[in-house]
């Protein structure tokens, strides 16, 4: 048994490929747990960042700087009364959030956090991701219809139209990235997520910069479409609070509502992961070609530890700035403790065995976090599109651009 467990560690494949059920299970738990924690962190971060964009403080009461706010929110939502409208279609109403949640979590099966850090590697990986993430629109439609109310219905109609429309542009942008994998005489193309990153590794470039500016444009199309796909500002029409109160989940409350939120944030992280994998070199560290060599590898592998240490220092600065008042004592101690934990993690990350294993995961997560920050930034800056304008952007702007880029990429691929 132990051998069975250990045998995987020496292998150079994902647990799914190795057929190692134990490690696959561990990975599934780790990934799903990690995603759930990331969603909570994202929740806190969004509220804090948005607040600072808007000259306010955001959550400050629950825990130091509101660090425990997501937990408090989760507890509140869990204990809230779960209301099902009496005229609602009970079964559909009940199953809709589950579908969204399942769809957005299943996607994580194929996300490559590192060359071996994925639950499994499907040879239709990217297709699988697009397919499964397109299932979440079903949940939205069902939720809107089952609520038996006008606002959710309009929200559902909007979102189904929106998600189906933007999937087209998104798919075409993805295809042009996939085309790049097979080019440059590096072998045949692939749909596998790990294969795509390996292709970038082999070509010594991120696809973002390949066939400049084609990769860049395709990435742009995807970056816009993915915001629309996840119903986030400025494309948050299905849940436009000023128009449709809360869109398709108007009638939901408590736990079920929190499942929607969980699904939404998980989907945001998932599509950002796709973008990172396809265009930003996945787990590769920055400047793989310009700053190559052993020394640079070492320098970049020290980044994770330093990041955590920096966060710890940030916490300690916060501790120093805490008001010296008995009322704040617990908060101060909590923040100091949090900083200490972060510092400890940072120190552990300097250890060579850990460092080598964690290095690629770190770069992947950092890139995804960048996208998450963009999501917040959009939300703070942009007004909301109107429905017809949204459709216009999707069909008349993004789609032609995506088709054009696709054709040009194919031509470039044949020429070079």
């Amino acid at each position, binding site marked *: 048994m132990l051998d069975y467990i250990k045998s995987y560690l020496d292998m150079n494949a994902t647990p799914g490929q190795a057929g190692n059920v134990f490690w696959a299970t561990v990975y599934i738990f780790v990934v799903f747990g990690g995603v759930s924690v990331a969603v909570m962190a994202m929740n806190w971060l969004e509220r804090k960042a*948005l607040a600072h*964009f*808007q*000259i*306010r403080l955001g959550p400050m009461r629950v825990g130091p700087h509101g660090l425990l706010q997501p937990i408090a929110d989760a507890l509140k939502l869990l204990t809230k009364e779960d209301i099902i409208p009496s005229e609602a279609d009970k079964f559909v109403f009940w199953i809709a959030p589950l579908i969204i949640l399942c769809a957005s979590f299943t996607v994580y099966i194929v996300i490559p956090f590192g060359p071996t850090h994925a639950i499994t590697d499907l040879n239709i990986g990217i297709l699988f991701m697009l397919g499964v993430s397109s299932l979440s629109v079903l949940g939205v439609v069902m939720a809107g219809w089952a609520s038996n109310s*006008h*606002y959710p*219905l*309009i929200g559902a*109609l*909007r979102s189904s139209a929106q998600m189906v429309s933007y999937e087209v542009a998104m798919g075409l942008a993805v295809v042009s990235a996939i085309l790049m994998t097979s080019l440059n005489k590096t072998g045949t193309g692939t749909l596998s997520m790990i294969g795509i990153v390996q292709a970038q590794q082999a070509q010594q470039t991120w696809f973002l910069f390949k066939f400049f500016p084609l990769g860049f444009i395709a990435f742009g199309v995807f970056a816009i479409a993915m915001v629309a796909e996840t119903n986030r*500002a*400025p494309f*948050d*029409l299905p849940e*436009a*609070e*000023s*128009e*449709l*109160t809360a869109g398709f989940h108007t009638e939901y409350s408590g736990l079920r509502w929190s499942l929607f939120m969980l699904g939404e944030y998980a989907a945001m992280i998932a599509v950002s992961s796709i973008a990172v994998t396809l265009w930003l070199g996945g787990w590769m560290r920055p400047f793989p070609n310009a700053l190559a060599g052993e020394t640079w590898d070492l320098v970049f592998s020290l980044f994770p530890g330093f990041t955590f240490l920096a966060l710890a220092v940030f916490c300690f600065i916060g501790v120093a700035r805490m008001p010296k008042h008995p009322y704040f004592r617990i908060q101060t101690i909590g923040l100091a403790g949090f900083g200490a934990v972060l510092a400890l993690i940072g120190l552990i990350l300097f250890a060579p065995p850990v460092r080598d294993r964690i290095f690629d995961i770190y770069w992947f997560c950092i890139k995804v976090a960048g996208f998450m920050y963009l999501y917040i930034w959009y*939300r*703070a*800056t*942009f*007004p*909301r*599109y*109107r*429905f*017809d*304008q949204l459709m216009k952007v999707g069909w008349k702007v993004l789609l032609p651009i995506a088709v054009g880029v696709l054709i040009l990429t194919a031509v470039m691929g044949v020429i070079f």
Partner: protein
Amino acid sequence: MTDPTTYLSHLELGQPDKTFLDSNELIINMGPQHPATHGVLRVILKLDGEKVLGTECVIGYLHRGVEKIAEHRTYTMFNPYVDRMDYVAAVSNGLGYCEAVEKILNVQAPPRANYIRVILAELNRLASHMLWLGTHALDIGAMTPLFYTFRDREEILKIFEKYCGARLTTHAFRIGGCQYETYEGFEDDVKKFLDFVPPKIDEYEELLTTNRIWVERTKGVGYISGEDCIALGVTGPVLRASGVKWDLRKAQPYAAYSDFDFEIPIGQNGDTYDRYIVRMQEMRQSLRIIRQAIDRIPEGPIMAKIPKVIKPPVGEIYHSIEAPKGELGYFIVSDGSTQPYRIRVRPPSFVNLQALDLMVRGQLVADVIAVIGTLDIVLGEVDR
């Protein structure tokens, strides 16, 4: 509540375009509990998909019978009540009421009082427009301007608070002038504010004026022509954005407005974007007026000679001012007693709201929100 369909009795909506799917129209109740109806406005929308076939406003949820109350109060006692109508522009409401009563008494507020009134009323116009901008932008989906405008509106409210102790329902003026002399440092505060706020207005404009989504959401939305405005009695920035250069401060100057040099910004297209631009320019013009007023504020008494018991002679008077939202009129009928026989308030929001139906027909649900925002209504004033 009554079934919404019975409310639609008068809506001559015509048949929606028949499609192959024979999609039937949807009737939606927007409000009274809705985040974007600015209070308790209830709009019944008749939709074909997302297209608005017709609307009907149901108002009165905030009706307090102000006009009836007036009949049972003396002129002085009624003064604070007017602040509660348009509670975001309480100073303007008070100004209109005090001037109307002064007119029927045939007295004249002293010049210094008039200057103080102009300064406060223009500050209030700024505050009202800032609140409008923040909520309007929030309705269209831009969250951030709301917090910026509230930050800057706060400075105005601080001045109000220092002047008269109240922030929102100020009751700043009295019949015959002002009760309070300006506080120590009033001029400095106002001057500081005048330097503080122009960059902030630039900031709002930077966020919105050239923002593509903002322009697309507002250009061509909620169009109303100047003729329609006049026919529907729509006044204020909405009228001016439709190209009619009419502002009571210029047309029939009251208080000290004839002393100041300012422009009436107008728009050409009569759409939501023009109304936005007009209001933004009005904010700058208000600053101009305040600057002139604070520089030239005369010394002297702040209260005219007014009898202790206000007992206007028998007669009636109509007086109106340019409130931030349009023409705010007071029609006072006196029977010679201490209590008005009747006070009629001509609320700009109420009359402007009538234009909603015309402005949103044939547009989308999202535009209804934009148009409600751009009309800048305050339900306290609509319902009184």
